[in-house]
């Protein structure tokens, strides 16, 4: 399906944005302990809690967000995430949404291109590249798949695989990099949460396309 990038959304899109936010909030709540466990292995153990706090703050504003043009909604959502996630993930997720929103509003570029640019901004913010065992290991292949207009169903099935690839990687950024070689063998929590939310969004979009 084609993501709307026009101001003035239809009623259906309003409902869709609400459902996507709720589904991500539910995913964050149900996977909080899992994400904390992953983070405890190679970081400070609060990633699940931070993401849950961020997504709950986002969900509290879902009515307001869903009534906005998508570009403005992404910018507002990014700001909410930065303010509420805290930790290193806040600026990264915040930058992803903020920059996607800016791309949609400034350049009239389609969603996949705006997302691709935003992923570049996240890389800059974290001074990381793919292969560094971060959420970029999910975001980069995801954005490339969106640009290639990969079938949503195939993509939804592939995403977790991107996060799984981080298990064998050695961390060179973030707290996990203090562990060096010992970071190998653990999935990166940022990549795991990113895969979780991306898969959740894909499922909501497919659900909508079906109905």
């Amino acid at each position, binding site marked *: 399906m084609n993501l709307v990038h026009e101001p003035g959304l239809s009623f259906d899109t309003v409902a869709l944005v609400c459902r996507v936010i709720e589904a991500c909030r539910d995913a964050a709540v149900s996977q909080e302990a899992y994400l904390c466990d992953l983070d405890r292995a190679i970081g400070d153990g*609060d990633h699940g809690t931070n993401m849950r706090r961020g997504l709950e703050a986002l969900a509290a504003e879902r009515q307001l967000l869903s009534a906005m043009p998508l570009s403005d909604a992404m910018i507002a959502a990014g700001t909410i995430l930065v*303010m509420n996630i805290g930790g290193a993930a*806040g600026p990264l997720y915040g930058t992803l949404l903020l920059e996607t929103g800016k791309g949609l509003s400034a350049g009239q570029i389609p969603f996949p291109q705006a997302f691709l640019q935003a992923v570049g901004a996240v890389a800059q913010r974290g001074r990381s590249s793919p292969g560094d065992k971060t959420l970029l290991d999910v975001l980069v292949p995801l954005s490339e798949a969106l640009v290639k207009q990969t079938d949503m169903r195939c993509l939804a099935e592939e995403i977790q695989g991107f996060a799984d690839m981080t298990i064998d990687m050695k961390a060179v950024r973030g*707290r996990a990099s203090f562990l060096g070689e010992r970071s190998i063998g653990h999935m990166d929590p940022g990549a795991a949460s990113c895969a979780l939310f991306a898969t959740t969004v894909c499922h909501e979009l497919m659900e909508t396309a079906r109905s």
Partner: protein
Amino acid sequence: MSDRRENVGIVIVSHSPLVAKGAADMVRQMVGDSVPLAWCGGNPAGGLGTDMEAILRAIEDAWSEAGVAIFVDLGGAETNSEMAIEMIGKGRAARIVVCNAPIVEGAVIAAAEASGGASLAKVVATAQELSPS
């Protein structure tokens, strides 16, 4: 000693409010109150971590037309500080620097330099001499 508000401001951002406050106490005791100084620590829920909104407030509190030097501990403190600098607007963003220096020693030596009326560039350079490049 030059007027306090004309001197470069110092902001301390730690994951721990105790570390941030402790570092700020050391600056006040060793350098005095001739530089604008603010600190923040902890995440939005009050646990260990960093909070961009609190960093923005600290920058406002320590604001000086001469600029502000920020001292951070771990990764999230740095990225959240950079995010706060972006949010504060282009006019002032150019006069705010996140220093690559140890948080306690960096803040103290930077404040000492700033208390003598040094420029932002000089304050930052002095603090960054502490870190092997």
